[in-house]
């Protein structure tokens, strides 16, 4: 037993988090920044932060993750980080020549109260920012929210810094894909393409964090939204933002700043959420849905109906980021599965919790939900009454092994498998992949547990 000190009995904890289901804001900001073409993320604080964030993202994507740091020592922590950031901006432009430097703060620089725009203005005044180059920033105190908020804040900063309204509307739709994998962003763009819609997606990490091996390293890979495209987001007809927590703030900011109306929908994970994406896009852009997408939808429905007996009534434990968890819960309910335990580490708020309760109100038995919660509590629930399937990030594998429960990896971080950055889980195709994963896990278990007599060839 790897987690043998986890007791079945639950003691209330007010101060101690054990096995968190979230991490801190700056890493989310760093991930979002990587979705701008030619951008070097910069962590304004001590160097441990960027080292940890780069390591975590690298382990998840198995791809280069470049970022810089202000490398605070004790002096900077006392006197402020201005000198460090000025020097860093100079060095980054001189040595690494990015188009954009995206600065995010840490708990250290937030606590001492460094004013990033003031420092950046000073850098500009001192000639440290070359012509045509940008330094953007966002505030990401680690002691507020989670990595999801960091992602949302940096995405919103893209609007604050770049979006412009010329008064002339273009026939484009902005897509804010949410905190999803690079391949998910690509798939969302493909779906919009099938609908014949011109889009601007931001951030866009496809081709950045799932790039090819060619023998030639590019510090700024092909992908990412360009600064020109970001500027044009203010002239789009509308915005479709996926995931209220990760994408909502940017969508609303764009509406407020440039009067681009927005639709904030769930992440397109599962049948109905994908229906919603396509239907929203159709209406916002005024286009017809092509047969190709309806065909894909039908394929997905076909799999669900073919294998319904294996989904029906299965109890699932689910842990992850709020936008993902909400969409996945709806998906599971639509399959007649029973999400029994649901935890997100992000403090997503009462409204969010209410939404989860609403989705699961007809699920038989008690549905336990904790927002924010940690994985110790999640594990304790499972010890009290087990589930048939676990969905969560790599850390859940310890619980899965101890309790001998089938497990599929979804979310961040996934440190021990590949595929998540190449094969989407959004859209109908992504949904089909999720169905395959769920079935593989459940049917492998059925095969393993059946007696020689019950062992089935055809399933």
């Amino acid at each position: 037993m790897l987690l043998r000190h986890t007791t079945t009995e639950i003691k209330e904890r007010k101060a101690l988090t054990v096995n968190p289901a979230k991490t801190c804001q700056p890493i989310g900001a760093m991930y979002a920044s990587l979705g701008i073409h030619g951008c070097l993320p910069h962590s304004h604080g001590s160097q441990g932060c960027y080292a940890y964030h780069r390591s975590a993202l690298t382990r998840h994507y198995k791809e280069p993750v470049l970022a810089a740091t202000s490398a605070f020592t004790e002096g900077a922590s006392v006197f402020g980080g201005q000198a460090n950031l000025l020097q860093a901006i100079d060095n980054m432009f001189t040595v690494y020549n990015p188009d954009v430097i995206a600065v995010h703060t840490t708990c250290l620089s937030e606590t001492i109260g460094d004013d990033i725009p003031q420092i950046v203005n000073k850098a500009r005044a001192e000639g440290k920012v070359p012509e045509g180059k940008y330094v953007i920033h966002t505030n990401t105190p680690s002691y507020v929210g989670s990595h999801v908020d960091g992602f949302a804040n940096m995405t919103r900063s893209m609007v604050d810094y770049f979006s412009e309204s010329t008064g002339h509307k273009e026939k484009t739709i902005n897509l804010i894909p949410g905190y999803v994998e690079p391949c998910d962003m690509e798939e969302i763009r493909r779906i919009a393409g099938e609908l014949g819609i011109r889009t601007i997606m931001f951030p866009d990490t496809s081709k950045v964090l799932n790039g090819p091996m060619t023998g030639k390293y590019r510090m700024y890979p092909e992908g990412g939204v360009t600064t020109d495209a970001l500027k044009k987001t203010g002239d789009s007809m509308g915005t479709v933002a996926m995931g209220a927590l990760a994408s909502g703030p940017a969508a609303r900011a764009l509406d407020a700043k440039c009067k681009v109306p927005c639709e904030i929908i769930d992440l397109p994970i599962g049948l109905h959420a994908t229906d919603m994406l396509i239907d929203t896009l159709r209406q916002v852009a005024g286009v017809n849905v092509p047969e190709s997408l309806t065909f894909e939808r039908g394929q997905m429905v076909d799999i669900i109906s073919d294998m319904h007996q294996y989904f029906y009534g299965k109890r699932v434990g689910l842990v992850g980021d709020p936008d993902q968890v909400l969409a996945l819960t709806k998906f599971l309910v639509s399959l007649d599965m029973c999400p029994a335990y649901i935890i997100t580490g992000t403090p997503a708020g009462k409204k969010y919790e209410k939404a989860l309760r609403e989705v699961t109100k007809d699920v038989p038995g008690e549905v336990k939900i904790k927002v924010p919660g940690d994985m110790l509590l999640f594990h304790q629930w499972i010890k009290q009454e087990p589930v048939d399937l676990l969905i969560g990030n790599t850390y859940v594998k310890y619980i899965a092994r101890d309790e001998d429960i089938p497990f599929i990896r979804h979310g961040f971080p996934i440190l021990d498998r590949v595929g998540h950055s190449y094969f989407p889980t959004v859209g109908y195709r992504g949904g089909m992949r999720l169905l395959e994963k769920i079935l593989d896990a459940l049917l492998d278990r059925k095969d393993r547990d059946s007696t020689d007599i019950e062992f089935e060839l055809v399933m």
Partner: protein
Amino acid sequence: MAKAAENSEEKFELDGMDPEKIKEELLAKYPTKVARKRAKQIIVNKVGADEEVPVIQSNVRTVPGLISQRGCCYAGCKGVVLGPTRDIVNITHGPIGCGFYSWLTRRNQTDPDTTPDGHNFMPYCFSTDMQDQQIIFGGEKKLKQAIQEAYDNFHPKAIAVFSTCPVGLIGDDVHTVCRQMKEALGINVFGFSCEGYKGVSQSAGHHIANNQIFKHVVGLDNTVGDGEYRINLLGEYNIGGDAFEIDRIFEKCGITVVSTFSGNSSIDKFANSHTADLNLIMCHRSINYVAEMMETKYGVPWIKINFIGAEATAKSLRKIARYFGEQKLTDRVEAVIAEELPAVQAASAEVRPRTEGKRAMLFVGGSRAHHYQELFNELGMETLSAGYEFAHRDDYEGRKVLPTIKVDADSRNIEELEIHPDPERYNPRKSEEDLEELRASGMEFSGYEGMMPTMKNGSLVIDDISQYETETIIETFKPDIFCAGIKEKYIVQKHGIPMKQLHSYDYGGPYAGFKGAINFYKEIDRMVNSKVWGYLKAPWQVNPELAATYAWE
């Protein structure tokens, strides 16, 4: 002394190129001030008489904006030194990130001790998950409550608390909280002021970790256990099971390990470690402090050893035997070496035709950038360039330069414990005459020659290498293998060059000891000869001209 080497006019070649010119190229892109600083950290090696080498600047601040390999003080303290101790509940006092990122990510294998009173908290992550209210009003109350809850839920023997950046800024007194909770709970509770901004790298965290372990744990249990030859192994973190392989060899030789700092370690073993008769240092940088303090307080001498590489392992075993000075042990050690070496030699003979003449570069944390050169030597591979993430000058130039190292403000902030001989327990393990005799026979105590004297003239030694420098030397030399950490791994591999992680071993290993050497030979053979490096170009990219066209009717 290092002046002579510096002023030399002698020119060296490195892989058919002029290393001084390459150094110039590396510096050319930097702003003047940065170039001036980096020039002192990039050194063309030259070994003079008496192992004199040029001065290299190290343990100085990271340049903001240059992408470095380094981590922070907290990472060195919680992640490296205390992390591998299975039975301590390690609570990170701070916002959630630091605890989360150091949760199981350093690959210390541990034997989980499933006895009823054994504990293994390695798979857990404990944090106070500080929120903005604590940043404003202080986090001591929450910390106290968290320690109580950790006790109520897990009943550990000890709880350690690690301070993160904001804790230092808002002035939470973790040590007082720990003292109070120690009294209240009756178990060992101690804290570490290892805020990330302290010092200039992880190294500061190692120092802080060593100090606190020495103050709060070492010496608590005076029971002298069984075993004729009792040693501690310091600076071995059991990545990939290295410590298990070393333990296997020790057991075969009849040598008893009292405590390993801190791979596969337990707090009880730390508490008893001062009863050993000899300290062996693997990673000099992370732990020489403990050896020094243990010698001063308890009279345990220390020697530098290295179990990376079969030859190095044999040499280290012989050193230990010589220290204890008993024929019985010497014979047994020789017998073990004779028994183990043939398999190693056979493995090396098999791979060597495929590895001979290939070139390596190593840029990793503490001693690995030095030790692993031994293994590459055994494969017939040359190390063109190497350097450390967080070393001090003594790790490069040898401990003889210690008196000449200037202590700067960043190091002065780290507590230096004043240690005196223990009035009751100080017990010199060898008489001065015995020590003199051992020294005369070539045995070096409290010594470490450093990395540079063992590297070839002309090789490039680079401290705190930047991303830009990494790329430039890769482009220039196209080495056959590059060794570094996870952050560098895929950058190097996109260039089409295999990259071996020497922090996590890419989830292979062990590489220490005799069996470890065999594993490493096979691994490097696999990596430098992998077919995948031949797949980088598609056939139509290799030969884009159309040789013939199919004609349609």
